């Protein structure tokens, strides 16, 4: 059996914004004034978030997911590796997924190779190593020219993986990071190396690069339903071109879920933190209102070909997740799944059945959600949603992907 793998993703939002934040600020990113940071209220915040993730390990989630953002209120992990380091000491079983470090922002990718190798050893071989180019806000934050990002990213990934697998010392002659001595100490524990995951938002270039190296493609857009299915089909085709066979474990997707005892209660508990997340955390990112920093000519990381395809694509309302006007609209889009265990199970099963993606990376904590609610949602999910989801998906995947039947679980994922 090869069931879906269920990961718990924490963004570590800043939860203490004033009520009138949305009225008075154009963005939660880059320019959001840091006088809003409340030292007193924020004491112990990281501990709370780390403990929530450690609780995910206790509950039997397959992995815990972290990511890197800077100078913003959406995600306070300027260095996900620091949080990962803490998790290595507080968790036992779950994979630790750093999704991702952003090499184009750093002077030298060897630092990533070294820190990931340390984390793999410190976690007893539980690291999943993610690499990404960084979005528009990161480009402004670290003053990195967007058009150079992808070239740097792929040179960095290849260099890091080579540093883990080839005998050192060797020299690296790449155009972006020429290095005389590459000789990693420690080496990662896992052989040949930790799994590599790379996020993308359906650009064909990223899919190509990921597929030809046999890495896992993580769909980072928050558009679900048909979009995920289409992306999975595209990625499967690209893999085929490189003589590889798609299985659901070659791909991951981000989902947002809140579970409570009943649909009514779930909505009542989730509504406030979800709106906090949409209105504040997504402002500047996935929202038209305010200052949009994530995509556009000012942060032109996509190729001309991809941008032309984007311009040619049919637009519906042009609304992004953060532009939702009502709870009903949110529900209809399925971007945030809120309800009783039964409702969530049903919706997620519909999603898995349709999209056939095997790594579900689930956000349980939203904006300023209270610790006890996030924990309850995680627990109900682990106890009342996950078992059926694993059982049904295991059957489905083995049936739909015969290649899986010959693989041990570890090989498949």
């Amino acid at each position: 059996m090869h069931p879906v793998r269920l990961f718990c993703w924490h963004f570590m939002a800043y939860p203490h914004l004033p009520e009138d934040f949305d009225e008075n600020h154009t963005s939660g990113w880059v320019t959001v004034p840091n006088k809003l940071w409340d030292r007193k209220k924020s004491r112990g915040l990281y501990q709370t978030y780390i403990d929530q993730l450690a609780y995910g390990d206790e509950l039997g989630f397959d992995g815990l997911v972290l990511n890197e953002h800077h100078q913003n209120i959406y995600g306070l992990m300027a260095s996900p590796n620091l949080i990962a380091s803490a998790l290595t000491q507080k968790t036992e079983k779950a994979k630790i997924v750093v999704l991702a470090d952003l090499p184009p922002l750093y002077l030298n990718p060897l630092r990533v190779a070294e820190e990931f190798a340390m984390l793999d050893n410190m976690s007893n071989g539980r690291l999943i190593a993610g690499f990404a180019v960084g979005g528009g806000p990161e480009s402004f934050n670290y003053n990195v020219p967007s058009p150079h990002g992808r070239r740097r990213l792929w040179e960095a990934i290849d260099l890091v993986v080579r540093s883990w697998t080839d005998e050192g010392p060797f020299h690296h002659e790449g155009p972006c990071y020429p290095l005389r001595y590459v000789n990693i100490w420690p080496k990662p524990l896992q052989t040949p190396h930790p799994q590599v995951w790379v996020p993308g938002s359906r650009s064909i270039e990223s899919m190509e690069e990921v597929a030809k190296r046999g890495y896992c493609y993580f769909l980072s857009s928050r558009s679900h339903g048909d979009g995920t299915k289409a992306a999975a089909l595209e990625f499967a085709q690209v893999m085929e071109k490189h003589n590889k066979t798609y299985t659901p474990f070659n791909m991951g997707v981000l989902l947002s879920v809140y579970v409570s005892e009943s649909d009514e209660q779930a909505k009542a508990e989730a509504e406030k933190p979800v709106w906090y997340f949409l209105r504040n955390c997504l402002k500047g990112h996935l929202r038209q209102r305010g200052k949009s920093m994530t995509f556009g000519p000012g942060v032109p990381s996509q190729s001309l070909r991809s941008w032309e395809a984007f311009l040619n694509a049919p637009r519906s309302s042009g609304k992004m997740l953060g532009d939702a006007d009502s709870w009903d609209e949110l529900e209809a889009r399925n971007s945030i799944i809120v309800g009783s265990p039964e409702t969530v199970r049903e919706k997620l099963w519909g999603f898995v059945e349709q999209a056939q993606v095997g790594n579900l990376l689930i956000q349980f904590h939203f904006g300023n959600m209270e610790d006890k609610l996030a924990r309850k949602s995680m627990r109900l999910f682990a106890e009342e949603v996950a078992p059926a989801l694993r059982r049904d998906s295991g059957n489905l995947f083995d049936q739909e992907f015969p290649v899986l039947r010959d693989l041990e679980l570890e090989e498949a994922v």
Partner: protein
Amino acid sequence: MSMKDIQVRGNKVQFYEAGNGTPLVYLHGIADTHGLLERPTNFLEKLSTNFRVIAPAHPGCAGTAEDQALESIDDLVFHTLEVLDAFDLDKYLLVGNCIGGWLAAEMAVRHPEKIQKIGLISPSGLKVPGSLTGDLFMAIQPLDGTVVEARDMMFADGSSNLANSVLADQTTEIKEGLMRYQVFRFSARIGFKPPYFYHDKLRERLYRFSPPAKIITGEKNTFVPIEHAKAYEEGFSDSQLVLIDGCGHAVHLEDPNRTASELTDFLS
């Protein structure tokens, strides 16, 4: 008068050529032909009544091939020298606008011998402490669905019809949206870092160019503040500065007659 293509070291370069007389090489800026605008500007057409205007599109702009390895102003100087080699010009007049003004100045300090005179319109390129260029990259990102900040940065009157036609909120034509993306992608390659659009050694190298130089900009330029134009005037050994009333950065669009006649008088 038309857009043409040539091959330079195996890559397509699109250029505009018009007029007769002394060759005038025109290096475009952002709100310009090959930049945000597909057609030759009136300003460029006016120049072509007195000179043989040759205006290549920079790598990745309009119909010129993109160069993934283009990472610095130095790369752009060498690319442009190769383009000009293809035209086999003995001597020429050099005019640069905005980011093209920066490029022109970098070429002038390296290879002054071929350039008879240099005209710079709202040039970026200098580090002027206390007077940073505006963040055009941030400004072009939508604010409540508009690019009002970019219009305000490029034009003295950001609400004018001119500003709205050059930098519309919604790029209805695919071509227009793509050109906007292209010129910003090109600009980000060389101008995003350091923040923004300068080479910190250029100012101390300007003295190397001894032929006459003229700098023209709008008195209300908030993208590249007039302190930059003044620094160019100080840096060149034989130079004059003209500030045009009521205009901002895109002075060649805001007052094409005055800008063209100031240049023509100087270059003739």
